[in-house]
């Protein structure tokens, strides 16, 4: 086992290259600058590797569209304001059914916001983000190890479903170092027939998003929708932690899930039976899996570094099945495990029930 200690942002760069990414375009923005910096150094060293510092995020995503159409594994990365700019291109990737990997190291917002870790882009990421009605696969790593694993998986999923896949992490995950072991990448499965590399003697291809005939466009919308339903059926992932006997289950992803684990240790020491449900795929959201847990526990507490976005997906899964509470810290505040511990202690009794005055 070859453990390395690397910063999250650089890990993503390395994992992408190991997964066969040979094209990267991006524009500097904190807190993800180490991704383009790593790619600038490493990509030219690998055969066929292309690094471009684009003039804007808009340009970067459109460069990725080109590389992807040409059949190259392509990636771009940014942080919240830059991801907003990329939405036009992400919508095009979805429309044209092109694979690509997009990294979002979220920071506090809205607007220019700040550069502190945050989870305010959940809606944008999981609802498609751009115009026209589409989905992107969204993966939410909670450790640097998972950043490596999920980045590799994102390329495979993007190819398999010809869809943009996004890693939704935050500034803290990008900046911190943790030991990582790289897994063996899977060989790429992506038919050459899909790659636009000149017709040669054969039939020429078109890749397009413009479909003027409404009926034809409708059919395209339904085709995409069928694909999304297959993904929703077969690609959900989650982790559960100390849920066997839990009277209260916390629901959190990414950095918030780490903090929740810390809180759970303290709470259990204090005799409260608390567990964690952690969605790893944010879209597709593990709705059915979460609902199963409502058979075990009546009480759930959603914990996010936002004013409550994943909360809506949890409600869709659990409304009518269980009681749902919420604790959120938006704006770039990273709450401590102690804070969350106190929140639970103050609001819940030993059986995980809501203390009366809170009801």
């Amino acid at each position, binding site marked *: 086992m070859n453990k390395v200690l690397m910063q999250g942002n650089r890990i993503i760069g390395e994992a992408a290259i190991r997964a066969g990414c040979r094209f990267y375009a991006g524009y*500097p923005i*904190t807190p993800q*600058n180490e991704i*383009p*910096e790593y790619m600038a150094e490493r990509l030219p060293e690998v055969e066929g590797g292309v690094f471009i510092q684009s*003039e*804007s995020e808009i340009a970067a995503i459109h460069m990725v569209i080109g590389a992807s159409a040409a059949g190259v594994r392509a990636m771009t990365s940014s942080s919240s304001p830059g991801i907003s700019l990329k939405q036009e291109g992400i919508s095009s990737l979805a429309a044209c059914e092109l694979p690509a990997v997009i990294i979002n190291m979220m920071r506090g917002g809205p607007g220019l916001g700040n550069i502190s870790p945050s989870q305010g882009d959940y809606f944008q990421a999981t609802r498609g983000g751009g115009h026209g009605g589409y989905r992107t696969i969204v993966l939410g790593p909670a450790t640097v190890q998972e950043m490596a694993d999920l980045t590799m998986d994102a390329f495979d999923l993007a190819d398999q479903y010809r869809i943009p896949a996004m890693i939704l992490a935050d500034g803290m995950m990008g900046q911190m170092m943790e030991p990582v072991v790289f897994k063996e990448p899977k060989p790429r499965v992506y038919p050459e027939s899909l790659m636009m590399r000149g017709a040669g003697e054969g039939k020429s291809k078109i890749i397009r998003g413009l479909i003027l005939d409404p009926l034809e466009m409708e059919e395209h919308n339904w085709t995409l929708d069928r694909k999304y339903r297959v993904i929703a059926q077969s690609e959900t992932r989650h982790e559960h932690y100390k849920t066997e006997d839990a009277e209260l289950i916390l629901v959190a992803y990414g950095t918030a899930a780490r903090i929740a684990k810390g809180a759970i240790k303290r709470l259990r020491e204090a005799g409260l039976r608390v567990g964690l449900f952690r969605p790893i795929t944010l879209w597709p959201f593990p709705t059915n899996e979460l609902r199963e847990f409502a058979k075990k526990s009546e009480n759930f507490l959603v914990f996010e570094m936002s004013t409550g976005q994943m909360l809506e997906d949890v409600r869709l899964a659990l409304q009518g099945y269980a009681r749902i509470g919420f604790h959120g810290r938006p704006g770039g505040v990273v709450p401590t495990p102690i804070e969350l511990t106190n929140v639970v202690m103050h609001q819940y009794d030993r059986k995980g029930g809501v203390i009366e005055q809170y009801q």
Partner: protein
Amino acid sequence: MKKVFERPKSMKKNIFHYCAGCGHSIAHRLIAEVIDELGIRGVLIGVLPAGCAVLAYNYFDVDMIEAQHGRGPATATGIKRALPDRVVFCYQGDGDLAAIGIAESFHAANRGENITVVFINNAVYGMTGGQMAPTSMLGQRTTTSPGGRKSLLDGYPIQVSEVFSLLPGTSYIERCTVNSPASILKAKKAIRKAFQCQIDGRGFSLVEILSPCPTNWKMTPIESCRWIDEVMSKTFPLGVIKDLPEIKKKGDKRHDG
């Protein structure tokens, strides 16, 4: 006793957060002095960039709005069109103006928006940690051009002032620097002239300032000043690049019918 040096009135009493040897603070002060001298503090609106100068409202005691990265000239256009009798200036870095915001800048210039742009060219992205800018020198090592900028891969340093001077909408463009007392005085004159140009209704004015960034150039402040003379100003020659006379109301070619 006679005071010969004091804080400009349009400057707040805050200490700059800029690194030692950075040119932003000098540029700020020059703009503030000009604002005082022209007596325009009350009618002035500043548009700030994403970049090291993002917090400049901590220093300028004038109305300021912060634009999204690169969109300053568009925001400034909106303000100026809505309030044509105000003085509007737009403060931009080289990444802000010449990369992500080149379209906004170019078109504001081409429309001849009657605004003033102060363009800080430090040949890097300062705020995000010294990545390559569109104005980085060929061969310049930055965090995203670790082997030095190569024209084949990254293109050439963009001479914004020269390019913009070709647009009929622009009226006054000068390139200066702030690496010596003499050059600082010159830069101040240029800024003053650019604002005057706007006040006289002559259209788009721009002052480009070659500005030292010791932190990201990995030089001492003194080496940085020298580098501007010895390297940067070879690619970006100093001087007045365009200075159109005042628009004569009748028969001026710039007024198409």
